């Protein structure tokens, strides 16, 4: 009887703990002036099925971004195979501004060649024209890279379709949770469990080369910070002082980790740890809580949360000797968890907005606060490597869930998980 119950329990538990939380990204509100584009199915002349539907992946990427309105295939009047075959008048009639055409063909070495051209209907100009080889299992990645190129050509910013998201999933009843650190492609594909534990996992942070994650795990019974290499799974404990070991953040060169320690006195302060030498430098020395460090992209200063003025507010401190912390946020009673945009000009924070915790963006000097999200308990903002979108944790029917908002607040995406609670998303850097 016990054995049978055990087998049933394992059958129920194991698949769920090995799979991710299966995220699905959905556009809630797009831009009113989204760009009309036609992604013509790539020509395929070889025998058999096309190994990957490159055009469908590009279509889905662009649509999900909220910035484009791809034309349905069924509405296309013709399927040109090259820029020279594009009849501008026909596409103008369909109110399409851009057309992507191309061809997929097998190469003698077993790989494939993706050849594509992007045509502007307004002036007939060929904006992109590229051929690239790809392995069969790299065709999806190649599709995302074409989406990146289209996005950049038309919007002036590189797309982030070939990036990944790390997040924490929590399952089970309140008093008996299990935790998983998961990495997924930004479209929800290729989910992979990086680390699992019956004790809390927190605060994942990407290394700037996208190869490792730093995070907090309580699996030893106490908080410690680990750096795990994704390819090998090798996990190195980098900080296990008494008290808090939290909020890791890699320096832009990847050699240092800003983190929060409380040591024996129990008061949280920000430190900088040099990974190769384990040398520790204390950055804040204050009776107050100092935590949640985030590096400026130039590596010369660190933003952090402090309640030295009463409630939590965002401060900036230079890394030079004798540099003093400067308060950045003055709007409202609660501003915390800063994250800096890749160009260093914008800071995403959690702000208390009329009784609700929401995601806001401010200028790096502290002015111009714009509240971007509309939930009650939104937190953990993380900015895409192109600066265009912010992913964060929100509440959906009483559970932690993920959502994306564009940096200008105009586009909203909801990410639904198949089960459990998902939170603390961290957007990867560009992966090359």
């Amino acid at each position, binding site marked *: 009887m*016990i054995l049978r*119950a*055990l087998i049933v329990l*394992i059958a129920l538990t*194991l698949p769920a*703990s090995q799979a991710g939380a299966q995220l699905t990204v959905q556009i809630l509100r797009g831009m009113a002036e989204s760009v009309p584009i036609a992604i013509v199915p790539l020509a395929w002349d070889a025998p058999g099925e096309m190994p990957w539907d490159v055009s469908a992946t590009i279509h889905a990427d662009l649509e999900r971004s909220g910035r484009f309105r791809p034309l349905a295939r069924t509405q296309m009047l013709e399927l040109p195979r090259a820029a020279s075959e594009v009849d501008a008048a026909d596409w103008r009639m369909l109110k399409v501004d851009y057309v992507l055409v191309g061809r997929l063909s097998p190469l003698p070495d077993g790989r494939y060649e993706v050849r594509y051209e992007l045509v502007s209907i307004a002036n007939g100009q060929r904006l992109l024209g590229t051929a690239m080889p790809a392995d069969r299992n790299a065709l999806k990645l190649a599709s995302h890279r074409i989406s990146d190129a289209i996005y950049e050509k038309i919007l002036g910013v590189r797309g982030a379709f070939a990036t990944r998201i790390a997040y924490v999933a929590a399952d089970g009843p*309140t*008093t*008996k949770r299990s935790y998983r650190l998961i990495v997924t492609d930004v479209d929800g594909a290729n989910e992979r*469990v990086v*680390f*699992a*534990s*019956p*004790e*809390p996992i*927190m*605060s994942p942070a990407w290394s700037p080369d996208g190869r490792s994650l730093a995070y907090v795990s*309580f*699996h*030893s*019974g*106490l*908080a*410690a910070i680990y750096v795990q290499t994704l390819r090998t*799974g*090798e*996990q*190195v*404990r980098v900080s*296990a*002082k*008494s*008290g*808090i*070991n*939290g909020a890791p953040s890699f320096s832009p060169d990847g050699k240092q980790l800003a983190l*929060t320690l409380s*040591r*024996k006195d*129990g*008061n*949280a302060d920000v430190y900088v740890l040099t990974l190769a*030498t*384990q*040398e*520790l430098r204390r950055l804040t020395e204050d009776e107050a*809580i100092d*935590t*949640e460090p985030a590096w400026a992209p130039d590596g010369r200063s660190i933003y952090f*949360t402090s309640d030295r003025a009463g409630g*939590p507010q965002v401060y900036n401190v230079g890394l030079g000797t004798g540099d003093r912390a400067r308060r950045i946020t003055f709007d409202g009673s*609660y501003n*915390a968890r800063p994250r800096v945009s890749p160009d260093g000009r914008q800071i995403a924070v*959690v702000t208390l907005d009329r009784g609700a915790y929401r995601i806001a963006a401010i200028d790096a000097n502290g002015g111009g606060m714009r509240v971007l999200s509309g939930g*009650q*308990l939104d*937190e953990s903002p993380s900015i895409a490597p192109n600066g265009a979108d912010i992913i964060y944790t929100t*509440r959906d029917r*009483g559970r932690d869930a993920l959502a994306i908002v564009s940096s200008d607040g105009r586009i909203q995406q909801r990410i639904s998980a198949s089960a459990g609670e998902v939170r603390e998303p961290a957007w990867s850097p560009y992966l090359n």
Partner: protein
Amino acid sequence: MRSLPVLLMILCTLMLVGCPKKPTTVPESSGSTTEESAAGSGQGEGQVGDGSDLPGASGSTTGGPAGVTNIIYFDFDRSDIRPEYASLINSHAKHLASAGGAKIRVEGHTDERGSREYNIALAERRAQAVRRALMLQGAGDAQLTTVSYGEERPAVPGSNESAYEKNRRVELVYGR
């Protein structure tokens, strides 16, 4: 009934199959700090399944003074101990002082509102306030370990004031 904890133990152990191998340890730098590393004491994932964190373990006073509860609740965004908990803390401190071998973990928690790492710092403050109070009443430093869970381990689910006030707490857990 006895089979349930055993079952959960086995299950927890099995679930660990998916975990990476045991953490590789980087030696603590001896130059930068003389602090002892509390987390490096050789406790690994194998600790899971010893039954100490099964439902029922928290909220009990196993190993503590008889008839005294082990949870101290806090006001919103506060870490000062309310006067009503003076006798509770005094009982635990006396118990620790008289049983020199006894050890407790002072576990700090917050409600779910606000930023997670900020809440870790808040909950650490609460745990430290209780630790200091216990020491003032006679408990030894070596008997006490603090750990802050922030909002990561709520006692009860829900996003309302009645759940929040049960989650803003410090728990005293014996035997760790």
